[in-house]
């Protein structure tokens, strides 16, 4: 008698299929190539879309002339200070709201009622209050960073396993040490989620604020060259912003792996 063989194969093999590492570069490279080609063939006028190579060359010239340096330092100054202030207050207030029931009852409704306001709408008000200088721009960035951080920190605190608090208290922790040694490290993953979210917001507010009221900065530079219709210089500004965002995110990720090695 002949035996029929039916081999069972793994039908979910597609779940752990590997993709070669260079695949992620292929997409970007392909897009740049296509863009360069379109510009070179003159399908789109360089006034509307300069080629990638001409953007790079313009960028190099602006770097040498010191134009980028001046604008970039002005922007970095605003975003670093604004972000630091917003993040610090966000974490602090978030911890307090999360840990103390009374603060939660009083503070949380306030936070949630201000949170939905698009922060850039407050810039005219801040200019009125604080003048057109650096302070109003730093404040608006700090405020934009504060909210995502405070809300994430708050829910991070709420998500800390109460068993860990009980264990800490059992082994002698007082309230301050419970916050310092249990609540803070326990909510770090959520805090970082908030910090990453805030990175995007801070960049958006930086550019908007600079477009509305600034002499220097990447945002005002982009607007300036837009008005003059010097598209390649405008695109250099956009490129710098994209690099800035990328560096920001990478930096936060690096910090995260440093601070949360136990995850």
């Amino acid at each position, binding site marked *: 008698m002949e035996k029929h063989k039916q081999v069972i194969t793994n039908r979910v093999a597609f779940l752990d299929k590997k993709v070669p590492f260079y695949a992620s570069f292929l997409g970007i490279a392909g897009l740049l190539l296509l863009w360069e080609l379109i510009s070179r063939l003159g399908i789109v006028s360089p006034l509307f879309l300069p080629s990638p190579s001409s953007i790079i060359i313009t960028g190099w010239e602006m770097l040498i002339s010191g134009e980028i340096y001046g604008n970039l330092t002005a922007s970095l100054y605003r975003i670093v200070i604004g972000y630091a202030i917003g993040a610090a207050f966000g974490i602090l207030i978030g911890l307090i709201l999360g840990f103390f029931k009374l603060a939660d009852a009083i503070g949380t409704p306030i936070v949630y009622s201000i949170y939905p306001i698009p922060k850039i709408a407050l810039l005219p008000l801040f200019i009125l209050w604080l003048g057109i200088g650096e302070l109003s721009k730093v404040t608006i960035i700090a405020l934009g960073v504060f909210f995502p951080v405070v809300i994430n920190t708050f829910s991070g605190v709420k998500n800390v*396993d109460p*068993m*860990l608090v*009980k*264990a*800490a*208290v*059992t*082994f*002698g*922790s007082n309230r301050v*040490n419970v916050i310092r*040694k*249990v609540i803070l*490290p*326990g909510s*770090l993953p959520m805090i970082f989620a908030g910090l990453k979210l805030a990175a995007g917001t801070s960049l958006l507010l930086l550019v908007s604020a600079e477009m509305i009221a600034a002499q220097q900065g990447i945002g005002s530079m982009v607007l300036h060259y837009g008005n003059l219709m010097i598209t390649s210089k405008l695109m250099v500004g956009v490129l710098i912003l994209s690099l800035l965002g990328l560096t920001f995110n990478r930096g936060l990720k690096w910090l995260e792996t440093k601070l*949360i*090695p*136990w*995850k």
Partner: protein
Amino acid sequence: MNIVIENVGKKFTDSKKNEVTALENINFSIKEEEFVVLVGPSGCGKSTLLNIVGGLMSPTSGSVYFEGIEKKTPNLGIVFQEIALLPWRTVYENVIYGLEERGIGKKEQKEIGNYYIDMVGLSEFKDAFPKQLSGGMKQRAGIARALAVEPDLLLMDEPFSALDAQTRTLMQEELLTIWNRTKLSTLYVTHNIQEAVYLADRVIVLSRHPGQIKRIINIDLPKTGRNEDKYREKSNQYADEIWQLIRHDAQEALKE
């Protein structure tokens, strides 16, 4: 020194605003170097009682106190069912947590910490994070953390219930070995009858609705080697006696 549990009762209000009596009229004491096991069906309030003794919950009536103790505040060590190691601390840092909070010097922390880590056999994993450990190893770290504070009373809340059966058997043996070295007054909660008979000097059987003491059984067997053949029959008798006490309640618990 005695730990006295006097007239302890606990009432809860459930989500439908009904009053539920979890514990009623609990009276017993734990003597120095005594290993007391609380056993009962699910929902008998045994974990509630342990939480009250551990100072993590207040009783509705009655009180728990230490008798004949010199120090102001007695030291407690708790081993949790959920283990509850801080995930961001290494095994060593978790074990010395209680010492750190008591303001003991770094050098002494190291001595005591290493001593108890060695006792539970985790020396090689001192610097590992809890995430990197197996369930059995995690709970060993939990035990070392509780022992490190050199407690006046050691509380254990179903410490091995999350472990697989083989690991649990080994851990029970290890626990006895450790206990024989430290001889700490211990209150141990479990729903596992064999475990209770294997470990206890005295077994306190609880009933449910309300949680009351049904019987206190002295286990009249030598502390070590209870799993040897010559004691098997006696052990089984104890286990059977406890099972008969609990059986009806356990069946009722199933229906809920």
